């Protein structure tokens, strides 16, 4: 059993984080929260629109960035790509709109991966190692984006094996031995 007795609730307007060592079960937990895996016991309750950015970039290498956005625009039932284009501006990859995903750099693929999770303005957002491959500027812009989501009343849960982002989080849990514990030293 990877996880035991997990009990976590994500409040409105909070950017929370879960940290833990490699293999601690962070991604498994997030996959359960996102509906990719079924837990042996227990329930997951979502309220509102929900977005999930998986740790492995999930794209189709044959499609261009714009084709990805249009495909997910249809899936999400959006009427336009205004928000997606705004996210591309913030993450600075608008110039790759007509490039195929298969030829993009790792960092740009991750930007698209993140944009697909955010483009429908989710009320609850689950992010698994969302800044992998980002350069420093993009990393900072990602946290600006997260702060903007907090101000808009969105709930964001970030999973990472690194603990140096803790100052940017409202709440922090530590996953160890399959058990999730709150960290009192987390920033307010």
């Amino acid at each position, binding site marked *: 059993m990877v996880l035991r007795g997990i009990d976590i609730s994500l409040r409105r307007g909070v950017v929370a984080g879960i940290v833990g060592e490699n293999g601690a079960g962070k991604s498994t937990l997030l996959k359960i929260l996102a509906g990719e895996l079924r837990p042996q016991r227990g329930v997951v309750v979502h309220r509102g629109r929900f977005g999930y950015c998986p740790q492995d970039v999930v794209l189709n290498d044959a499609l261009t960035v714009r084709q990805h956005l249009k*495909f997910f625009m*249809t*899936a999400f039932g*959006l009427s336009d790509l205004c928000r997606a284009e705004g996210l591309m501006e913030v993450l600075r990859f608008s110039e790759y709109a007509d490039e195929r995903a298969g030829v993009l750099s790792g960092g740009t693929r991750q930007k698209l991966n993140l944009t697909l999770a955010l483009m429908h303005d989710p009320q609850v957002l689950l992010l698994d190692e969302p800044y992998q491959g980002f350069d420093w500027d993009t990393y900072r812009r990602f946290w600006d984006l997260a702060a903007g989501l907090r101000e808009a009343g969105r709930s964001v849960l970030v999973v990472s094996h690194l603990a140096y982002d803790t100052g940017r989080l409202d709440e922090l849990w530590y996953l160890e031995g399959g058990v999730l514990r709150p960290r009192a030293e987390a920033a307010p």
Partner: protein
Amino acid sequence: MRRHLTFFVTAARYDLVMHARNRFAMFLVVLYVPAWVTLAHAALPDKPAPVRLNSTGEFLSPPGDQLSQITGALNAVTLISGFMMFAATFNGGRFDRRLAMAGHPRIHLALAKTTSLALACAAVSVYATAVTCAAWIPRQPALLATALFCDAMTYGALGVLFGCVLRREVEGMFAMVMTSIIDVALQNPIANTGANSPLVRLLPSYGSMQAATGAGFTNGTMASCLAVQTLWFAGAALLALLAFHRRTRSAFPRTRRPRTPTRRRPAHGTR
């Protein structure tokens, strides 16, 4: 209704884009089909090969090289469609699941895949028939193309099935190649003198092989053979659909989805 059409058209359009960008499949179509068919004509003797059409009970003795061209064309179109669908399913499995979890109905994704498969199979089958006609004129070229199409569709469905259940790319490629080779070789009277055995009636390409042979050398309609092949396609497609459904399902129970003012339809469930 319009919403359903949008889901379907969008998915079908991007499925076709993905197939068109599969360079290896395009290479196979452009070079492998004419190479197989031309080599069979050039390298094999034209000695008559005895073959029995089980649907009519008729015994035929067509030239061996022409019969081998038909089996070669079947082998080529099945490998191409099977490989295309295997590659698309294997590489796009998680992407399909992400789309489904974002709110794209899986039935529309499956219908779009079937449509793009049918268009690709139709193009490859017509091409393979045209290449065959360059060497000799079958009695019924349209029936030959139809037989190739039905077999290509069957292998396309098998490709989706293999793409869903196998874990490594090489496993799928091997499974696809070996299935096609065993299937076609066992039915070729030049490679197997026992090709009229009742056992070969159970092979996935049996209906198409009989229909294609009838198309090459008789004036019969071969409707029953095409019906057998259609049954094989239906069975393979059903298994593929079940595997696709299982692979793209969400762990959450199905519930009503909330509506929001900025969206035409909601994307994710609420519990």
